[in-house]
């Protein structure tokens, strides 16, 4: 029993896509350019050459926010989407009927369709692979060249993530929606 979350030192991100690739290899994500559980968002550059706004081109790594109050879970008519005992929002593919309500409900655009199973797939913090083997890092965290991610148990006051969230300023995405994300962006 844990309450897993992730802190992202997003200023380290260089948009190299190592995380996306590691996730795909680890979790057997369907091949294809639009099939991925995690991604890096980029802003379109503003200004005219050579007077460009450096701050407009921020790299923003993202994935499922594993909300404590997950809208995707709420709208799922078959309870395929559920929160497991470790606070991870997961999909039971046997129950998914691909109604796609969850995809519309998710404010973070974190879900996609796996065409092999014709069900909705999303980040599960490597619950079926690395965590199942007793490992303590996700594939994206382990591989990251600039070490953007810190993964851990939010309920354990001695965990690294708890320590970091106590000592560093951070924010959550779309906090006003009240979804209570468990991804925290460090500033």
């Amino acid at each position, binding site marked *: 029993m844990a309450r897993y979350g992730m802190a992202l030192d997003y200023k380290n991100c260089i948009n*190299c896509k190592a995380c996306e690739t590691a996730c*795909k290899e680890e979790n*057997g994500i369907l*091949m*294809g350019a639009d099939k991925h559980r995690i991604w890096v968002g980029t802003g379109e550059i503003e200004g005219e050459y050579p007077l460009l706004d450096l701050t407009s081109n921020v*790299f923003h790594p993202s994935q499922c926010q594993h909300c404590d109050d997950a809208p995707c879970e709420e709208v799922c008519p078959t309870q395929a989407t559920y929160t497991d005992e470790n606070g991870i929002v997961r999909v039971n593919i046997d129950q998914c009927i691909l109604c796609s309500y969850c995809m519309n409900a998710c404010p973070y655009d974190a879900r996609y369709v796996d065409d092999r199973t014709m069900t909705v797939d999303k980040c599960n913090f490597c619950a079926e692979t690395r965590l199942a083997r007793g490992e303590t890092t996700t594939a994206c965290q382990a*591989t990251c060249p*600039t070490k953007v991610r810190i993964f851990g148990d939010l309920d354990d006051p001695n965990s690294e993530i708890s320590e970091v969230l106590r000592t560093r300023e951070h924010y959550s995405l779309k906090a006003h929606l009240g979804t209570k994300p468990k991804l925290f962006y460090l500033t």
Partner: protein
Amino acid sequence: MEVEISRRKFLQGTVAMSIVGSAALSTNLLSNNHDSHGSSAKPGVVSFHNTKTGSDKGHDVATLCEMCVNKCAALARVENGVITKLNPNPMFPKSKNMLCARGNAGIQALYDPDRLKYPMIRIGEKGEGKFKRVTWDEAYNAILNGTDKFPGLSTILEEEEDNRSSMLFCAGEGMAEHTFKQFYQAFGSANWLNHASICLQTVASGYGVTLGSYPQADLENAEYIIMAGANRAEAIVTPDTMDLFKRTKGRGAKMICVDPRFTNTAAKSDKWLAIKPGTDLAFVLALTYVTLTEELQNNEYIEAHFNDYEKYKNSIIENKYTPEWAEPITGIKAEDIYTIAREFAAAAPKAVYYPGRRSTFAKNDFQLRRAMAIFQALHGAIDTKGGLIFGSKLKLKPHEGLQPLYEKAQARAVIKSTDKEGHQGYDDCAVVSGGGSWIGWRNRFLEDKMPYKVRGMFCYKHNPMMNMPNTQKTAEMLRKMDLVVTIDTMPSDTVMYADVVLPECTYLERTDPVKTFGGVEPSIAVRNKVIDPMFESKPVMEILKGLTTKISKPLFEISKKFDEEIQDMIDEDGEEETYTEFNLTLPFLHTQEELNHHVVSGYPGAAEKLHHDGVFYPNQDTYYKQLAANQFQYYPENKKSYSTRGGKPKTPSGKVECLIGSFASKGIDPMPVWRDEYEFSVPKGKFKLLTGRHAQFTQSGSSNNAMLRDLMPENFVWINKRVAAEKGIKFADMIEVSSSIGSTRLKAYPTEKIAPDQVFFIHGFGEESEALTWAYKNGGNDNAIIEDTIEPVYGAAAMHETNVSIKKV
């Protein structure tokens, strides 16, 4: 991804196809029994599943990545004989627990269905790509005796009267280049060309002659970094990339990015200066002017470690290399140059003018590197924490090779010449380095300006068709060669021109020569074999063992006929004893594992440690610690090699060389100076073509990788947005880019990240080999249009000197 499209719209620019993944792949799927590679381009036909890793522990093998040149440490997870995941190996101080996108996608290189699977010999016309599958013995036999389509080594050496230099040897960068070089040396040719002249030649030599070494930058501790012409966020270098970007943006390191393009590195910088291509030298000279006129230099360091400081100072001041002078040349404001020089000096010695790690862009690159090295040294930021460092290196024991002398082997096929002003040099360039001038050599070969006949070539892990300017000339060269033997993993464009194709296994299927990695935290690392070679592929070591076993004796018989020294030796010592000195199989008698064991035998327990962990250094067991989830200690702070020589340069004189007198007689400026012909200019209506690297591809070597194609399906040509609008060019419109030597087609990416008089696209796309399912005619090939401009000092290919026109098609 260079092209910024929001996540779910990403598919727009791609082709829908099923793509090859990793784990569920059976070898049956890959071993389609092609008799020829002539018509195997079949997008969408091969289906391939990517499956998740298993839930049991599995077992890990420590190896080193070969998806690019960095050699990062990886742990390969093996389940039932299949590699299901590559993870970073945290124990290696160079790669510090990271594996980039390419490193992760190594699985797709291993299980690429297009891989070369068995030896082949040519049955069609040269370049047509029609081959016949043969056994290894038949392939070796074809190399020795030829077929009805091409002559073998015995005919060539017989006709050339045992001139071993009638065969050219060339190789790309890699740990096993060492093994291939053993073959070259034993064979006795003097013609060796490697990647240097299309890679680091001018930067390595510029720093080499000035500081005595091509130093590393301590980006973990530098407080001020000028990152000019280097794109560390996209062209990843370990440990530089990881060290740097954890500290930028107000977190300890101020970074000034100087690049004509707005790169990902520019996005992470504190200030981006859009310099005009090829004018960095003027920028450095102006920085130097500010340092010297405002007395910002480190006089103590200069007094102890400089030669000809006064002469250089006078040259800078008398030439009036003021920031105001540099402003119109570089496009960088004079006030910015003043500020940067002052800030750099204030931060020194924790300041770095980053040496960079790239191919030659402009003809003045060698002088630029000299000026950068001197500017750095003026501030005393050499061999110091936070500056440029020499570091230390763990010694390896040498192992025996074979380098016989053949009387009839001619000297290297270079031609000494004297120019109009009486400068001594060579036809290709002023100085010929160990790796030679590839395009100079190629062009002279085509123009029949060789001192003797070169008839064939051995090409290892090297793709001259894609890797150097003017693809058409390279094709012509390959067609003109009587015998081309390629050793490679993939059916590259160059392999299509081969007479004999020898399939090497990938890096995950072989053990390579152990390597020592110098730096602040030195270590030794090894690439251990993870799984057995698939199909009939073999490590280059075993390929060469088989080949030399076949050819050694018959070639010795030819030498006996022409080589009087060998004849005398036989008279004196008998044939058997004489042959031992010419037995080509000698370097390949031991396995790679045995050789590795030998070279680290000076360190107790190292061989076992390397086998198990992939990494070794003395006191590793006490020094190495995990400090946090993402943080490891390799050496305690007081054991790191920040300063190993008290700042003393590694030149023969032990000084920073401002002036190199011997260069004057070769027509090279003995001190870095600006020349008017270096100025940037583009004829009206044309664009300067820029090329470069990317974090998701390593040149043509990874262009067929299915996983990486998910990240970047093809390359796009960057065109300034306003220019594109004027020309009615929209995103993904097909564009023809042409220069004086050819044209290529790729899609448009209108953006403000590039100047209106320049265009850019990523190198390594647009291959013509039909045997590459995904890379075939995918995107544009820069080398089809980059003119073969030769940098005058070392004969390097100058990549950014070509003007092009663009047209919507």
